[in-house]
């Protein structure tokens, strides 16, 4: 029997039972559709996160922290778990240490991760925020993407950069309009010496805090856009960026957490973290080991990227496993349909055998039938998965846009997803066809011809 004839036989039989073919193929379509959208979602997440990391220059950044196995975190409350503070070395991450790190070959810039809480206000609207001190060199780099206006040019320029989100919350919806307006930063400061001499008692009870307030006005020179996947140890986590020069003139609460008090070494308070920008990734290991020799711990995202990739692999696996449930159901549907088909065509199989069909011919016809169901269902499933993803993407972005988030494609469709999905569907359907095809081939023609 020729290949084309076997295909023709299979298609003729499928055509004859249109509704059932359609329903069975629909099962496959739904399964493949689920799988395609699941995997494309996983791939979309991975693509977005990777792109955000790459765009933010984070691979060239090493975070340096006082000794202790802590990792960076955006949440000050989680930054320093109590148990980890014990047994710390004496190295203090202060200005001298930053200067020393800056001199390590391969380091482009090193700047402390300084932020302080302050009340920021714009035209009467107020918000309580952390203000972050960022050198001009960094503010002008890829790490901080000023979308409207410009970054401050020098470390002494009186000007701040705010996030689009903050501008919105302070009543200026159009980020371009925020540029040039005046932001008032009201800081809170404490006389540290008094606390240390007076003991912690007054502080802990909340009484007798020597708090003073002072306000400074700065023009907004630039606005940065919201980065939806800009997590990680990024300098853009805070909504207000200020240059070191003007920041130095603000009296401020130098602590963001009570644990800072215990970090004091002989009255010197080190920085909680220092960002180190490298000229090239090739210097990563040497810089890290030099910094460790100084008694600090390091964290480099580049080291973590393999872990991130692994995490995404597991996420893909889980998503695929969910999609697989639908595929298994669809495969059972194919088996069911094909076994039914054998019972219905029992006599026809007998006739085909009587006029000379071999086991192999019968097997092929049934195999091609289930294959055709898989192929059609797989192709339709790709379309379904793609359309569903498009719809979900639209809806999600519609709601996120109301919250000021930029448009993001949450799904990615590399071409291999479609090829893989159709191929996989074909394989599943052929595997589903093995048992029915074998069973059809084993039909005894004498019994089949006696059958009514």
């Amino acid at each position: 029997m020729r290949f084309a004839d076997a295909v023709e036989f299979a298609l003729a039989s499928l055509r004859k039972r249109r509704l059932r073919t359609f329903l069975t193929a629909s099962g496959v379509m739904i399964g493949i559709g689920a799988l395609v959208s699941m995997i494309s979602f996983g791939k979309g997440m991975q693509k977005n996160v990777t792109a955000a990391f790459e765009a933010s220059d984070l691979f060239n950044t090493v975070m340096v922290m006082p000794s202790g196995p802590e990792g960076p975190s955006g949440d000050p409350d989680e930054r320093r778990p109590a148990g980890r503070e014990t047994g710390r070395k004496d190295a203090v991450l202060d200005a001298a240490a930053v200067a020393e790190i800056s001199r390590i070959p391969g380091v482009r810039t090193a700047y402390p991760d300084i932020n302080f809480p302050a009340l920021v206000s714009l035209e009467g609207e107020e918000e309580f925020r952390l203000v972050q001190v960022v050198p001009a060199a960094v503010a002008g780099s890829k790490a901080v993407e000023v979308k409207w206006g410009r970054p401050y040019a020098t470390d002494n320029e009186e000007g701040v950069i705010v996030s689009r989100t903050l501008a919105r919350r302070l009543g200026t919806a159009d980020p371009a309009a925020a540029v040039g307006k005046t932001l008032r930063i009201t800081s809170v400061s404490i006389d540290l010496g008094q606390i240390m001499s007076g003991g912690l008692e007054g502080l802990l009870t909340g009484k007798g805090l020597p708090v003073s307030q002072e306000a400074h006005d700065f023009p907004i020179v630039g606005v940065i856009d919201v980065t939806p996947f800009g997590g990680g140890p990024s300098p853009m986590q805070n909504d207000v960026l200020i240059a070191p020069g003007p920041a130095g003139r603000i009296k401020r609460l130098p602590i963001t957490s009570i644990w800072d008090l215990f970090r004091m070494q002989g009255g010197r308070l080190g920085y909680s973290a220092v960002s180190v920008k490298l000229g090239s990734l090739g210097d990563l290991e040497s810089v890290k080991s030099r910094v460790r020799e100084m008694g600090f711990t390091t964290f480099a995202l580049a080291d973590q990227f393999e872990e991130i990739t692994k995490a995404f692999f597991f996420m893909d696996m889980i998503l695929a496993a969910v999609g697989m449930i639908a595929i298994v159901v669809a495969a059972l549907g194919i088996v069911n349909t094909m076994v039914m088909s054998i019972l219905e065509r029992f006599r026809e199989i007998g006739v085909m055998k009587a006029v000379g069909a071999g086991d192999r011919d019968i097997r092929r016809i049934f195999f091609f039938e289930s294959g055709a169901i898989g192929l059609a269902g797989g192709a339709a499933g790709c379309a379904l998965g793609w359309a569903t993803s498009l719809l979900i993407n639209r809806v999600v972005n519609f709601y996120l846009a109301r919250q000021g988030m930029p448009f993001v494609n949450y799904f990615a469709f590399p071409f291999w997803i479609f090829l893989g999905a159709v191929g996989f569907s074909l394989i599943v359907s052929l595997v589903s066809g093995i048992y029915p095809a074998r069973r059809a081939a084993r039909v005894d023609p004498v019994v089949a011809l006696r059958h009514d």
Partner: protein
Amino acid sequence: MKMDPSPLVETRSLSKTYLIGDVRVAALADVTMAVAEGRFVAVTGASGSGKSTLLNLLGGLDTPSAGTIEVGGALVSSMDREALARYRRFGAGMIFQSFNLVAARTALENVEMPLIFAGVEKKERRHRAAELLEKVGLAHRAAHRPSELSGGEQQRVAVARALANGPRLLLADEPTGNLDSRTSREIVGLLAGLNRERNLTVIMVSHEEALVREYAQEIVRLRDGRIVAAEGTA
């Protein structure tokens, strides 16, 4: 009468037993017969005498429990499944009481079917199938489905199909069982004509004594799975 030195069909001690529950039922026991090429042989007997079993064995649809079948020098009784399929395709054509046409296909497509399994290319098999339909007098009904054809027409299509790959042996299992007497005569007449013109060997199971006596050259009578008489009529 001249004896053919090597018969086309030859069976030796052919037996077939079925296991029905725990009971062994002998459908055919110790059948030894020979049919020379070009003969028209009728097999008769009451129902349950083993006629159809014998025909199924000769046609390679079933395998014997004991004994041998040789057709055209090939040992059919020891063939594997694939070889049997090939034998059914090329060695022996079969027609049945209930015609056994595929309902979804036209007369022409039914005749094409053995050619499809033989791997004949489409244009060639269309041509050959049309020729065969013309031979059985149904050229004008080629595009009709079995349900649109009379019983006699359906059996003619079945005959054309049985001859598609040019076998030397035609096996007919009660071909007139579902037909009226006039149509029955036409069909058996068609088989007799093919037997004469093409030197086609025909083995026909029937219990219509009159037809058998008129057309068959030899009659083999079966009772309880055994040959009780073999007679020549011509």
